[in-house]
């Protein structure tokens, strides 16, 4: 074991204890493919876990965290190769396992929970049957015993009226209930170890809190827990030990308290700094320094007159049951020049519909929107078209918002406002826009598919800036990005606002992001405005019960003590991997 990452057993971490440990992993490697095409995706990872402990494996996409977790239940897939110096669970050597051994282990000794239950439970079967399956597969009890046990389990995870719910299918249950059913199926055989792979991704904040609560209870019952997540804040709620992975390597492995208070690896430090929250307002999240200044770009005058004003908006949609549903219900707001208004809410709260009403891509059933003091939503599209330069949009998924046949240059040409008649002027303007968002002229010839996620979102921002808008509607612009890329995009948006005095209508489900970037905040639920006001007022001192519940369900990471002034400029690249894909690209 000469070349393994040695500084792993750090101070504060208890030494491996062969008698007590439930799980011991030493120098684990996983590769995919055959022969020459073999790619190793996990390069020598070691950790151990005792009963009643929670280990969190944290990393961004492509870090190998999920593959590591799946190795422990033998579900890495057919074309994978697993090797390790030691891979032991409860004293048994997993490396020697045959298919039949794995089947006996899965579900009985190790429970495995995947993300959203809407996709992790079979939609065509009642949830009771899914839980029952976990028992039946391991030959537990008679049919009647199993039925009783299923109800008992459902009660244990807090599902009311289990007898009724057991007969329902996942799509008939609310998000919280079906997530509990998923957990019930995973813990049915009372396994010693529970592995949860991104158990709260894609879930609403309030449901996420319920899931974490359930996992906490399992841990309290003495179960060992492995939590796989990209979200440090979520992890901080449960973990005793944290392992940080990047590109298949274990970079830091330390007790949670120590890791969050004094992160040693620069990558861990940057990950923690990249988390947007109430405390990060006005500060930069990423270490990337802004190079470009904006030259002759015109900035709008700040003014108290609202640039975008919505008054008593209503919108109804025909539901699948044939009845009208009020999706936007009496929503009003004002957005001033140079300000950011955050709209936050859970899925189905009507925030995206509100954004489309503001953009006049959808006509309201009641109320109206004014743009730059003039009528906007009530005008015919022909008239609106000429004024669309004043308001533009950035979507959550930039890829689908680009015509797949077009190059970046064509996309940008399409977005130029009026007054760029000759070729040279257009070229100059496009180069200027790309520079504003930190892209190179070399990107002009690429197509969207050939760009990384962060680069795509930068092109989307450049396109939105093209017509020199007064307002940009940002609809979940960072929700699909990794934490470190999210940090860069949020920084970029803040920089652009400072320089151009553009206004943002910023839609997000993420309270941390909203609090970080917004001057004022609008909380929506069921189409209605629940609370509206200054960001700190609303999010630090919420009045409405719904806002309170929302704020309470937000996992907050205790930030490390600032160790002096934050280093400005690019951090040393010696030890850590590049934190951005774009710097490398």
């Amino acid at each position: 074991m000469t070349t393994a990452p040695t500084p792993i057993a750090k101070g504060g971490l208890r030494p491996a204890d062969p008698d007590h440990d439930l799980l011991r992993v030493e120098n684990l490697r996983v590769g995919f493919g055959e022969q020459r095409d073999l790619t190793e995706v996990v390069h020598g990872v070691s950790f151990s876990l005792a009963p009643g402990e929670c280990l969190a494996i944290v990393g961004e996409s492509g870090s190998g965290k999920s593959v590591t977790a799946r190795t422990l239940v033998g579900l890495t897939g057919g074309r994978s190769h697993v090797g390790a110096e030691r891979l032991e669970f409860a004293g048994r050597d997993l490396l020697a396992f045959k298919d039949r051994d794995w089947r006996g282990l899965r579900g009985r000794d190790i429970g495995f929970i995947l993300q959203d239950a809407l996709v992790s439970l079979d939609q065509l079967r009642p949830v009771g049957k899914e839980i029952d399956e976990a028992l039946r597969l391991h030959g537990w009890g008679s049919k009647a015993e199993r039925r009783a046990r299923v109800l008992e389990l459902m009660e244990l995870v807090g599902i009311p009226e289990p007898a009724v719910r057991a007969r329902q299918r996942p799509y008939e249950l609310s998000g919280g209930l079906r997530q509990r059913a998923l957990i019930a199926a995973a813990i049915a055989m009372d396994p010693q170890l529970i592995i949860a792979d991104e158990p709260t991704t894609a879930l609403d904040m309030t449901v996420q809190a319920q899931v974490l609560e359930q996992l906490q209870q399992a841990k309290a019952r003495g179960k060992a827990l492995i939590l796989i997540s990209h979200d440090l804040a979520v992890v901080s709620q449960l973990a005793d030990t944290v392992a940080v992975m990047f590109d298949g390597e274990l970079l830091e492995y330390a007790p949670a308290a120590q890791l969050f208070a004094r992160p040693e690896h620069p990558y861990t430090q940057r990950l923690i700094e990249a988390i947007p929250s109430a405390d990060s307002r006005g500060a930069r999240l990423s270490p990337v320094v802004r190079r470009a200044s904006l030259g002759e770009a015109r900035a709008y005058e700040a003014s108290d007159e609202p640039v975008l004003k919505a008054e008593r908006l209503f919108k109804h949609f025909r539901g699948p049951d044939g009845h009208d549903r009020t999706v936007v219900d009496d929503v009003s707001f004002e957005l001033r020049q140079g300000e950011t208004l955050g709209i936050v809410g859970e899925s189905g709260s009507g925030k995206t519909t509100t954004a489309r009403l503001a953009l006049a891509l959808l006509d309201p059933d009641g109320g109206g929107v004014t743009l730059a003091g003039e009528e906007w939503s009530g005008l015919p599209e022909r008239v609106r078209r000429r004024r669309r330069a004043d308001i533009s949009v950035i979507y959550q998924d930039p890829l689908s918002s680009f015509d797949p046949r077009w190059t970046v240059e064509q996309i940008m040409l399409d977005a130029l406002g009026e007054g760029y008649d000759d070729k040279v002027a257009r070229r100059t303007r496009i180069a200027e826009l790309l520079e504003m968002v930190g892209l190179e002229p070399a990107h002009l010839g690429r197509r969207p598919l050939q760009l990384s996620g962060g680069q795509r979102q930068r092109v989307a921002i450049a396109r939105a800036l093209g017509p020199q808008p007064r307002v940009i509607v940002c609809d979940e612009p960072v929700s699909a990005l990794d934490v470190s890329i999210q940090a860069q995009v949020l920084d970029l948006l803040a920089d652009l606002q400072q320089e151009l005095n553009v206004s943002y209508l910023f839609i997000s489900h993420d309270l941390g992001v909203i609090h970080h970037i917004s001057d004022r905040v609008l909380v929506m639920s069921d189409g209605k405005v629940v609370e509206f006001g200054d960001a700190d007022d609303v999010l630090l001192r919420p009045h409405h019960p719904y806002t309170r519940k929302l704020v309470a369900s937000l996992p907050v990471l205790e930030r490390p003590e600032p160790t002096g002034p934050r280093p400005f400029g690019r951090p040393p690249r010696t030890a850590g991997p590049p934190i951005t894909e774009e710097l490398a690209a």
Partner: protein
Amino acid sequence: MSATPQAAGADIGRPGAPGGAPGSARPRVSVPDWVRGIRPGVALAGLVVAFFVVAMIVPSLLTGHDPYAVNLEETLQSPSWSHIMGTDQSGRDLYARIIYGARESLLIGLGATALGMGIAILLGVLAGLGNKWVDGIISRGVEVMFAFPILLLALLFVAVFGPSVTTEIVAVGLGTAPGYARMVRGQVLAVRDSGYVEAARALGHPYGSIVRRHIFPNAMRPLVVVMTLGVGQSIVWASGIAFLGLGVPPPSPEWGALLNAGRNYITQAWWLEVMPGLAIVVFSLSLTTLGRHLQQRLEGGVNR
């Protein structure tokens, strides 16, 4: 941190693990990427299609025999070196007849596909871009057309108009149109509701220009693949009609007509049925292979 992927101790080893494959350094010939991406099966399919296209344009290049030359000394000969696919009841060389029949068969296939696709594009685009009523009426109409299987439609047309090549083309074209139309409509709808069309609207581009620059090109792109697959299918159906004796009349060497002529000799001369059928199968299978290859390329990204 380790630099070598195969670090000490931890050998990647599960059943079928690489036993240290020797890094065979193959000599690299510089081949353009797009050529290297073509699998042998696809290359073969391309050759087959090219072969039949040559047969369609200059059949005399591919055979020395005269497809119409009757030779009563050599009737119903089984395949041999002088007649690689045998001869028919009049002693005509079957291979030559198949080669010379390619033109009519391919033209029928192309004609029927063009007709079907033309109707489909018209209906599909109208339904996809039209309002609720236009869409509703066209979609219902297409649904009704589904109730007529191609061959039965053809038989109805034959009964009414009498057998002819035109009847054959119209029947196959009309019979395949509803399937294509439903697909075109789906494509148009998907593009119309896509993020980039909304993004273009948000930029203030007029609807006409969005249709011209985004919706039309993106909705039509997959149709290239469908056309490729469709020509093969049309030939199969058209020759089926001819097989029943309701298409091109003899002595034409059109493939379906050959099949029809061979029906009476099935117990004595199997090759009269098997060989023309083989030509149809090989040709349509090659088109399918090419079509699927094209589809993978289109889906794998634009101009990768």
